[in-house]
């Protein structure tokens, strides 16, 4: 129906401003837009608070068991009941810590990836997207648990658990704060190597069991890669043992009160960081699940919570291997240059010896140490994810060349340096 001319003149014309011509619109996704950085920082804070709280329970738990008058402990050590109860609780707790740390870390790193990539990352589910990974986790638990017809059902079921167990076994020996360690092993360094290797088996048999060619290729790549990179990783662990003279992680941290191990053992620290990238299968070493080549590699056929275990383990390792790096090379829970002046000492000195204030001060000092530990770990995790966002992946032969022709000689040089330095300085 045509409008009459006077009706048409009554229609409101939207004026088009003269200068409305194209300008590249950077406003919405400028990396410098403050709220995006603020969101990432807020999520990092979330990480500190949640993981910190969980770890706090970790530290307080034995203390609670040994409260005066407790039936679970007598004379500073556990009774049998106490030990069993403590063991069960500790196991549950470390599972929780690994899982929750991973969940929060996934969120933080998704936000951080968004920051790098000029986008927002999760922001609509929960305050600033805080519940995103919880939704993911619940979804995965409720998803169909699928076993392919021709898969080896037993191995198929076990593989994700092996990977996951390997990840949270590592958690048990890491000293987060002075005295806060689940298992203060004399052979902590060896345990790291041993526990880490189980994960390689999980990936290998997981890829093999699903009866999928991409999975098989992924599993084989993983086996080759993980076993090869164990060598420079182990040798750089060895340098720490040589330099400090102990395999106990607590001793190693204590020895770094003044100088970080990374300062004399710079080469070893670098080798460790690169090799640990390969151990956690992050770009540029993400060949086992190279998404553009092998679809999803070893976890191609995994759905629901089984895939969730792989996923969580991957991100738990993203937290754990930097954590080990912090313990071994970057001063653990000590603030930098704690040998000259340590705020933790100030906290410990509160009140009279044995008073409640003094005990509380001790707790605060531990929490202060944990803060430094988490901060260093978070920074290293960010470094890893930065590398992941930037680099393309290597080819398998280049990966092997890097390991055998560069990293292993370098780690041996690092070992020689450690031996020489030890002979000269100690």
């Amino acid at each position, binding site marked *: 129906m045509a409008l009459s001319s006077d009706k048409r003149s009554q229609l409101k014309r939207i004026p088009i401003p003269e200068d409305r*011509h*194209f*300008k*590249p*619109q950077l406003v919405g*996704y400028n990396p410098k837009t403050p709220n995006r950085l603020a969101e990432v920082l807020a999520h990092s804070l979330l990480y500190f608070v949640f993981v910190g709280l969980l770890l706090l329970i970790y530290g307080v738990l034995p203390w609670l068991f040994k409260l005066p008058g407790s039936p679970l402990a007598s004379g500073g050590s556990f009774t049998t009941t106490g030990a069993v109860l403590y063991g069960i609780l500790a196991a549950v707790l470390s599972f929780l810590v690994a899982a929750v740390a991973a969940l929060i870390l996934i969120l933080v790193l998704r936000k951080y*990836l968004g920051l*790098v*990539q*000029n*986008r927002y990352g999760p922001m609509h589910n929960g305050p600033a997207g805080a519940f995103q990974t919880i939704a993911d986790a619940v979804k995965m638990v409720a998803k169909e648990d699928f076993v392919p017809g021709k898969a080896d059902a037993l191995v198929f079921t076990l593989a994700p658990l092996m990977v996951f167990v390997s990840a949270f076994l590592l958690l048990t020996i890491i000293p987060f704060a002075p005295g806060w360690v689940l298992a203060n092993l004399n052979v902590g360094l060896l345990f790291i190597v041993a526990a880490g290797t189980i994960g390689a088996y999980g990936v290998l048999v997981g890829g093999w069991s699903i009866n999928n*060619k*991409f999975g*098989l*290729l992924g599993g084989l790549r993983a086996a080759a890669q993980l076993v090869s990179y164990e060598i420079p990783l182990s040798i750089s662990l060895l340098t720490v043992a040589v330099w400090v003279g102990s395999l106990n992680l607590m001793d190693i941290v204590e020895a770094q009160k003044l100088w970080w191990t990374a300062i004399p053992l710079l080469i070893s620290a670098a080798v460790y960081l690169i090799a640990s990238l390969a151990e956690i299968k992050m*770009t*540029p070493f*993400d*060949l086992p699940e*190279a*998404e*553009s*080549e092998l*679809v999803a590699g070893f976890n191609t056929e995994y759905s629901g919570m089984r895939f969730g275990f792989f996923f969580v383990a991957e991100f738990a390792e993203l937290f754990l291997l930097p954590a080990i790096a912090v313990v071994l090379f970057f001063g653990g829970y000590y603030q930098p240059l704690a040998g000259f002046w340590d705020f933790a000492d100030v906290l410990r000195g509160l009140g009279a010896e044995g008073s409640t204030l003094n005990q509380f001060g001790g707790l605060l000092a531990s929490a202060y140490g944990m803060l430094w530990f988490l901060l260093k770990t978070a920074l290293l995790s960010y470094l890893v994810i930065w590398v*992941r*966002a*930037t*680099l*393309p*992946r*290597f*080819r*398998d*032969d*280049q990966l092997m060349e890097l390991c055998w022709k560069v990293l292993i000689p370098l780690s041996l040089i690092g070992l020689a340096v450690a031996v020489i330095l030890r002979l000269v300085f100690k």
Partner: protein
Amino acid sequence: MSIPAALMTGPTVLEPVVGKTDEMIVNLGPQHPATHGVLQIVLGVDGERVTRAVPHIGFLHRNHEKIEESRSYAQVIPYLDRMDYVSGLQNELPYCLAVEDLAGLEVPERAKYIRTAMFEFNRIISHLVWVGTYMLDLGAITPFLYAFRDREMALDIIERTTGGRMLPNYFTFGGVRRDVHPKFWQDLLDFLDYFEKVVPEYETLTVDAPVFQARSVGVGLLSQELAVNHGISGPNLRASGVAHDLRKDQPYDAYPELDFSVITRDEGDVWARSKVRMDEIYQSIDLIRQCAELAPRSGPYLARGRVKIEAGEQRYRAAEISRGQLGVYIHSDGGTGPYRSKHRSPSFVNLQIIPDLFIGQKFSDVIAILGSIDIVLGEVDR
């Protein structure tokens, strides 16, 4: 309910070679992240080494050519957009050139410049998609997002000019369908001013990056003779040292007036192909600037005339789109539409080379090579 067996006789699949127990048959696609759409490649793999490769296409066959037989000349153009959907505008040009030749239409000077500028602008957009998806193939996520960020700004300009984002149906025989808006050239120049500063960033992330070079130098070598004999065109051919570029060799629209040289490299490997594309982005920026300078700001944008093509007339016209030589063969029977229109799509021809390039390569390199050929399946299958 599963698919009846009678319908499941799919494309021929490789049988393992008897006596060669190490060979494994790996099926890439049709749903695979690195096939850039619905392409199936059946690979024989010995460990990580590729022994055989058989590509299967046709998963996106949309009978363009049959449908176009029942359409009028003008109605065909929207279908052309959908062939190479990454550079939709560029597809329209060779068809328009062919019809103009057949019907004897002269394109006004101004329309020539608009078409050329848009043609080159679409090349930038297309190469941006290539940068993004190719780096995704190689495992780097971030370049993809940067490329799509900038592509989005470029699409804004296309949208303001033509009304469509990806498949605008803008060129027509005798010029362009609608006049450009008054700020068109300024828009382009503004974008280029911004974009020129970003391209070095892409170079840093791709051709200059050590890991990228490790993955690409000396990989997927394509010799000059093989390339020419297989009819390879576009950056793939020029990266093998053949200076064949239809913009220079068979100039159309405003290209005769523009000052540029054909970009070639002699290496013929994946890196060279990437480098040529990177250089072509710079070249396109330069060409659009020249167009903006030379283009008349007023005048007709469309030569109006009846399209009447005699029976028995036929024409093959080609243009150099981002992926190579896109040709259109039109055969007329004197009717209102083409009796037969056949599209010579560059990706279709370029894809033929993959068995030659794949065999003997690593599995990872297969992905790198496939991405470097830069195919669009819509164009391969038509």
